[in-house]
């Protein structure tokens, strides 16, 4: 199978952009799990919240678009500079949602937190699917503006947007590195290692965990906005538990509490997923190869935990040890 060079280039560009979006998600989850030891199995909810916020902030007001645009709210913030407002709003909403979910569950033991976040993300997915007045459910909001695309043209825009996403990843990376090197970061790790001890030292661990939750949620919210403006539409079917799972694999593969590691993990994972799309189909079994691709990702997770629990770039001394209590 021959791919033309321009096609190849645009494939690589879009793969890189997707990987950068997953890198943002992974950086967010790394704050939760890698640094603080919080088992967040509902990461996709923050991603979705960010994506829908970006969409609702930037789509044209309802009634101005012909052809069944029957959503209730569209603020129509003008592009391309409105994207700053859109990203800010998405971070805010992602962070607030994380805070709300955190309020219900950070006091819980780790196992309960895992289930509570998993469940709340499930409910959030149901909400997106059902509240069609706001989200248009399974039809989706399909006119999310792509900032600058009409001025730059499709090809150049693809490159520029990739660079924009890369700049965001670098910026987020620097902020997190700075934050985690500060006393706050050490406190998060302290909670991860021994919450009792942190509490004995007079730290309000619930409050700190909530902050960690909100920070990671805000980063996932930004990822959602980048995604929404890149794809140009948000649909209920995009925000399924699979996303959470892939981000987890990226974090565990890359290395706990290693920000460079989780970015690498996201790239490896997305490269695997996108490249294996081109595997030929086996006659008579249309679902076999596509499913095996994902089965391999599941197996990869199992193997990493068993043989390289610190991940590719993680520090073996920093293995998350919480959860020994129930």
């Amino acid at each position: 199978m021959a791919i033309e060079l321009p096609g190849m280039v645009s494939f690589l560009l879009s793969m890189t952009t997707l990987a950068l979006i997953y890198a943002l998600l992974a950086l967010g989850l790394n704050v939760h799990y890698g640094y603080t030891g919080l088992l967040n199995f509902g990461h996709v909810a923050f991603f979705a919240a960010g994506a829908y916020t970006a969409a609702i902030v930037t789509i044209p007001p309802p009634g101005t678009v012909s052809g069944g645009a029957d959503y209730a709210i569209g603020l129509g913030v003008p592009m391309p500079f409105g994207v700053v407002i859109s990203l800010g709003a998405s971070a805010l909403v992602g962070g607030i949602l994380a805070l709300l979910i955190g309020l219900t569950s950070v006091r819980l033991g780790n196992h309960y937190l895992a289930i509570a976040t998993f469940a709340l993300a499930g409910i959030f997915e149901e909400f997106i699917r059902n509240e069609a007045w706001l989200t248009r459910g399974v039809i989706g909001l399909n006119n999310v503006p792509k900032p600058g695309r009409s001025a730059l043209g499709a090809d150049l825009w693809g490159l520029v947007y990739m660079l924009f996403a890369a700049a965001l990843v670098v910026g987020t990376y620097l902020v997190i590195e700075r934050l985690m090197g500060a006393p706050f970061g050490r406190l998060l790790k302290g909670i991860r290692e021994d919450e009792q001890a942190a509490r004995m030292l007079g730290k309000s661990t619930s409050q700190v965990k909530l902050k960690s939750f909100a920070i990671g949620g805000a980063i996932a919210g930004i990822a959602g906005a980048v995604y929404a403006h890149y794809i140009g539409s948000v649909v209920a079917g995009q925000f399924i538990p699979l996303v959470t799972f892939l981000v987890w694999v990226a974090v565990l593969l890359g290395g706990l509490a290693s920000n460079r590691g989780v970015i690498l993990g996201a790239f490896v994972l997305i490269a695997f997923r996108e490249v294996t799309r081109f595997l030929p189909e086996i006659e008579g079994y249309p679902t076999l190869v596509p499913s095996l691709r994902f089965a391999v990702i599941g197996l990869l997770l199992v193997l990493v935990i068993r043989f390289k629990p610190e991940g590719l770039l993680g520090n073996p001394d920093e293995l998350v040890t919480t959860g020994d209590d129930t």
Partner: protein
Amino acid sequence: MVLDLISQFAQVLVFGLINGSVIAVGAVGLTLSYGVTRFINFAYGEFLTYGAFLAFLVATVGGAPVYVATIVAMAGVGVLGVVIARIFFKPIRERGPLPLLITSIGVAFLLRNLMRGVAGTDPQSLPVPLIRPISIGGVQISPVGIAVFVVSMLAMGAIHLLLTRTMLGRKMRATSGNRQLARVSGIDTDSVIRRTWFVASAAGGLAGVLLAVQFPPFRPITGWRFLLVVFAATILGGIGKPYGAMAGALIVGLAMSLGSFYVSGSYTLAYAFAILVAVLLVRPEGIAGGEI
């Protein structure tokens, strides 16, 4: 008018009870395995899926009656559970519950996608005969629903007898209470864990068949979706506590039935979890894992 409302309410309750009885089988199985292995098994939903598909295979390709297919499915999934535990969970058993929990998510993903690859994504249903519902005082009950309820009650009874009247049950409770102590008392805890895996997975297989019978059709993702509901029931009852899981399942089943009828039909999971989150908020400490 009032009579209509009452019979309507009774109808919703009956649906809730049957729904709850399906959840109960899965919740008891999950909670049993937690009691002995001490980690939350996210791959448990796949046992339901494999149960349904195995029964489907035996009943359609093999041409066996559904009850025979059910027994084969339970045995098959029981063995599958033991094999999975040996390959994936036993080697990292000493590393604490967190690696086990995360591994179970990978295992779930692996199993689900293997099934999807082989079976495809088309919806399937078990060859259960369509029987006209019988009407009792204005309440419609399908004989299939009654059968599901009865099978579930029998399974609950069997697990109760297992735990209280058999040597294995006593060993399971001892192992759950304190594994080290059980071992120095001469209990072969490895064997107990293995058998618990068999019982818990077989219960999952049965729950999958009941789910497929009561709420057809099913797909490779059915068990994973239902896992949320099973979790809700398990936690509600206090994880690791079989009788709690039965009660939790009943409450969740009724909540889902009442909620989707009287509040809004588009949400189903939300009712189960509204209750769950409420309970977690009120007594986060009171539902910590217990002994079997």
